[in-house]
């Protein structure tokens, strides 16, 4: 299988879906002429023209509202927020409009739209540009939340998102754009709500998504040296969440650690840990551990940022707490 980069998986998925379905179009800041701040829409304007690859003003609330109006009237927009940090400006349009419309209108209308956004920290972008806030969108019902960790997952999930009749928030990690991975030549789709076991193991279950999957895999290698075999589960979509796969794994390992890059307090990890405790309280050998970012705005200084964000070592420590 050919190896491609994470950002290339985005443009491949977009190009394939735009070719297949004339209703699909892309809009956002610098998605056209520039080809995307992270090169994710490179070449699309040349191939599909400025109408279907539309550069917009810097007006995120407007961008999301426009996408919603288009989705309600026959098109299938893919709106790019450049980064999720800027999606906070559009929070009202996403949560109070896009996520609620179908339900509050009694199911009369579908909103087949995708909101793509880069997220995450780790490269000293500072307090305002390092958010991992998937927890807010998982909290609010009405929008699917997808966080691919590899080029393969990204392409298959993005194509599914574009064909999905419901709104999807598709969160890409800024530090993964240049990572490479094998992707089959032919077309393929990956389902929502199906977790992927990125590494099998019998001693402890590590649940992680997006960039943290790679930290978890690194941690698993370190643990293997200690003779601890960790199973790494990547839910890939947090809404819907494949709880079954997680619970089946924990039922075997009887120990679990949930890892996220976002703030630990009221993170998605708290939800998954609670679900595990509720379902398997009497089977667990120890309480589920949570690893997440320090509860402070992300500091700029490289040494402080490293302390703020979770990494393989922090995951190892959490695992050792419940395995020794």
């Amino acid at each position, binding site marked *: 299988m050919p190896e491609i980069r994470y950002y290339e998986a985005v443009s491949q998925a977009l190009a394939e879906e735009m070719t297949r379905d004339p209703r699909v179009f892309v809009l956002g800041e610098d998605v056209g002429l520039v080809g995307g701040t992270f090169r994710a829409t490179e070449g699309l304007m040349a191939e599909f023209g400025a109408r279907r690859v539309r550069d917009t003003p810097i007006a995120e609330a*407007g961008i999301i509202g*426009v996408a*919603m*109006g288009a989705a309600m009237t*026959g098109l299938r927009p893919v709106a790019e927020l450049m980064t999720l940090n800027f999606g906070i400006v559009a929070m009202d349009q996403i949560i109070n*409009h896009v996520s609620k419309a179908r339900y*509050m*209108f009694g199911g009369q209308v579908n909103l087949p739209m995708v909101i793509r956004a880069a997220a995450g920290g780790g490269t000293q972008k500072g307090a305002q540009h390092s958010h991992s806030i998937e927890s807010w969108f998982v909290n609010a019902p009405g929008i699917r939340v997808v966080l691919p960790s590899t080029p393969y997952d990204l392409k298959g999930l993005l194509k599914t998102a574009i064909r999905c009749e*419901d709104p999807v928030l598709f969160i890409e990690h800024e530090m993964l754009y240049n990572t490479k991975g094998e992707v089959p030549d032919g077309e393929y789709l990956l389902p929502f709500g199906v977790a992927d076991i990125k590494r099998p193991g019998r001693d402890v279950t590590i649940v992680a998504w997006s960039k943290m999957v790679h930290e978890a895999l690194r941690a698993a290698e370190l643990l293997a040296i200690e003779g601890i075999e960790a199973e790494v589960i990547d839910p890939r979509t947090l809404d819907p969440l494949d709880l079954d796969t997680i619970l089946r794994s924990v039922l075997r390992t009887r120990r679990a650690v949930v890892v996220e890059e976002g703030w630990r307090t009221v993170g998605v990890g708290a939800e998954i840990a609670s679900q595990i405790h509720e379902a398997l309280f009497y089977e667990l050998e120890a309480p589920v551990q949570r690893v997440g970012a320090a509860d402070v705005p992300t500091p700029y200084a490289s040494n402080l940022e490293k302390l703020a964000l979770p990494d393989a070592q922090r995951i190892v420590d959490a695992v050792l707490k419940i395995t020794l």
Partner: protein
Amino acid sequence: MTIAAADQITMYRNMVLIRRFEEGVAEAYADGFIGGFTHLYIGQEAVATGSITALNHDDYAIGTYRVHAHALVRGSSARSLMAELYGRSTGVCKGKGGSMHFFDLQNYFLGGYGIVGGNLPIGVGAALSMQMQNRDAVVMNFFGDGASNQGVFHEALNMAKLWNLPVIFVCENNFYGIGTDVRTSSAFNEIHKKAQGYGIPGHVVNGMDVVAVREKCEELVRYARQGGGPVLLEARCYRYQGHSMTDAGKYRSVAEAELWKKRDPIPRLAKSMLESGIVDAVRIEAIQAEANEIVTDAMSFAEASPRPAPEALYEDLYVEDARA
């Protein structure tokens, strides 16, 4: 007078029906059949009537939380709307939306939204959708004087003009945002002039004169449909009731209200139609009786309708097959 006799009669029918409908709503609210925030349209009938009747059936309209009238003029049945207000499964949104969230796709009504200004970019998106699909439909995008100070107003107008979209922005300037006078909320309170800042033509019309509104809107709809791009119309009007059922409206003087009531659009049109011999007194009475019947029937229909089944709680959130 360029509006055909038949059209004038239709508009009169609509205005009388709106007035009766809202009176019925007030009654039902007092009797506890209707809950939540309920915003009446009494006094502003000429705006929704004169503007929406200038649209083709497959043009879109989208509005705020004060949209009982707009849905009626679009063609939603009084039964389906009243049942919605009663929170019944026979409601236009199955009882899930309520007063602020009417929506009727069959009648090309893209809904009522409760967040001030929130509908504006959505309407622009629908217009973009018409343009991209080469449909010659236009979008009528309603908002209030207070909404013109929200950020999304700025973003929506800019995008509509940038992309030369077929949107008619209709500002229902009733001079108050709840209790805040337009002079207290807008530095530049001649709202039609705000359009200039975007290179959009701004017009103003007497919103208490349905024929004037209709004539102006036919002109603007033609302009937008022919590719002229967005236009903005400020219709000056007055709401007789408080902002919502729970607002006594003490912030407005009795004298001011009396002055506006003298300009009531319903007797005004009746008088002119009688004078020009379009109708006689008998016909006028018949129309009022007809409206009474429609509303009385709608209220008993609503009261007799079943409440949503408990299973409805989890229905309509996502399109089923979205789960993989």
